[in-house]
């Protein structure tokens, strides 16, 4: 049960990352590797600020703002200085590694017995549960703390998902989506396409930093290495989500991304439980994304071959 709750909680937290990447990857079609750095940035800022006595809400807000700044820098490198998109992301990600170390002052900051954004949920659960530190859910003993983080993440996730949907359906959101689809058309409609890319990357990395901030509060530490490979994880989650529910509408896509992230986390938790070496995790993930990207083409050519041979017969 703890395994499942843990997987769900991390899944919900990381779905903020996936939603952020949905904007860069799927909406404006920008392969943004800044993500690996801005996730750590969000975690680092939150950890430092909370441990020096700031309110967790304020710390999280500052983290999001910093993530947005990092995203805009990538956007400006790409639009203003005409650096290739991957390289723009790599430059900012590399710079962020040093910046994150500077912010934290060391490579790891523990967050023990500090207040987090799930404190309100914890208090509410404690009052409902008459002060007991654990309660039973469907016959399983669960600690109030774990459950409160799960509830808070769920609320965050639903709220952000809903806001994102409303945003993408506005006039502004509509041209944002079109920017990735047809730049020529967007310019002919009077939209500054470069500005749209910068804004999109800012929003995207703001969400990623929020994810990092929540992750640090849940795990109880921030580590300078925690962002490595996160972009590929987010991508895997988006792909799983699309395979699960399709891309029929925006709401479905957003819900699918959240579900995809949770399912991906569950699969990982199960694989680890079955004895997968944690060191192999990123290799397996990379292979999975490769397979998911190649499979559609492969199936298509297989289908063509099959229909060809049946025509001959």
């Amino acid at each position: 049960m703890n395994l499942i709750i843990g997987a769900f909680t991390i899944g919900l937290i990381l779905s903020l990352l996936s939603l952020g990447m949905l904007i860069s990857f799927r909406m404006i079609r920008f392969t943004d590797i800044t993500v690996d750095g801005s996730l750590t940035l969000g975690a680092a800022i939150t950890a430092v600020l909370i441990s020096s006595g700031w309110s967790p809400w304020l710390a999280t807000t500052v983290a999001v703002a910093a993530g947005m700044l990092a995203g805009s820098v990538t956007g400006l490198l790409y639009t203003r200085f005409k650096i290739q998109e991957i390289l723009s992301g790599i430059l900012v990600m590399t710079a962020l590694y040093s910046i994150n170390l500077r912010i934290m002052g060391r490579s790891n900051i523990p967050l023990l017995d500090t207040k987090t954004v799930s404190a309100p949920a914890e208090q509410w659960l404690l009052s409902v549960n008459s002060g007991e530190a654990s309660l039973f859910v469907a016959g399983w003993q669960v600690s109030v703390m774990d459950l409160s983080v799960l509830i808070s993440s769920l609320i965050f996730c639903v709220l952000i998902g809903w806001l994102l949907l409303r945003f993408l359906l506005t006039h502004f959101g509509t041209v944002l989506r079109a920017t990735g689809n047809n730049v020529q058309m967007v310019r002919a409609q009077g939209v500054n396409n470069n500005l749209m890319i910068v804004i999109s990357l800012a929003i995207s990395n703001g969400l990623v930093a929020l994810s990092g901030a929540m992750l640090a509060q849940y795990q109880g530490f921030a580590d300078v290495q925690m962002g490595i490979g996160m972009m590929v994880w987010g991508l895997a989650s988006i792909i799983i989500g699309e395979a699960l529910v399709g891309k029929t509408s925006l709401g479905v896509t957003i819900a699918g991304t959240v579900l995809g992230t949770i399912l991906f986390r569950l699969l990982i938790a199960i694989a680890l439980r079955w004895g997968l070496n944690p060191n192999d995790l990123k290799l397996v993930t990379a292979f999975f994304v490769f397979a998911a990207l190649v499979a559609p083409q492969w199936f298509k050519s297989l289908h063509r071959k099959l229909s060809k041979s049946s025509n001959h017969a």
Partner: protein
Amino acid sequence: MLEIKGLSKTFFAGTVNEVRALSAVDLQIEEGSFTAIIGTNGSGKSTLLNAIAGSFLPDQGRISVANEDITSWSEFRRAVLIGRVFQNPFAGTAADMSIAENIVMAMRRGLKRPLTTALNRKVKEEMAERVRTLKMGLEDRLDNPMGTLSGGQRQALTLLMATWLKPKLLLLDEHTAALDPKSAAKVAELTRQIIADDNLTAMMVTHSMQQAVELPDRVVMMHKGNIVEDYRHEQKKRLRIPDLLETFDRIQKRELFDETVADLLKKQYI
């Protein structure tokens, strides 16, 4: 309405591939007129249109539309004044988005994009009414992705979108060239109709002599980055396809003659 003075553009200047695309072009277009630009490949007609639209900045000269000097304006800023339809029927619309989403973007061409919900039933009804004038049955398919439509349907919608907010100047860049003959005729007819109904000022680059004779009220012929003929008023009314072909022939012969003479002179003196 449109005033072009001494417009010049050289691509790849200083290299072996140097192309003098526009050399000191002067052109004035009155409000409410419909001008066709014709010319051989590489005559500079599309370059002229792209210079007006702002795809690149000219080396020299000035462009003003509706008394605004737009010479240094960026491409997207000019959209306030200019509506465009491209040669590629897929260039003017976003394929993965619905017809309604495409149109709603055109409904605010060049204007601010607020954070309010773009589509609702009222907006869609307003859309359907105007899309119905295309007589293509698209008003019932507003939620379908643009990518599911044919080239002709997409070009008709692009035309409608470019003129949804009345532009000061409508630029049509060989907008029927990539369509099958039937769709091309349909889009040409729509073009004539929309321009007449809304009393628009329009410029159309075309390869079709028939369109050049039938649709506009002025025909400008370009050659090697210069305007070489300008048929208007009575002269345009008398203009027929054979006249245009003859002019093309004459220009090409003159050029051929020039080059042969140059070669002869070279042989004799060098």
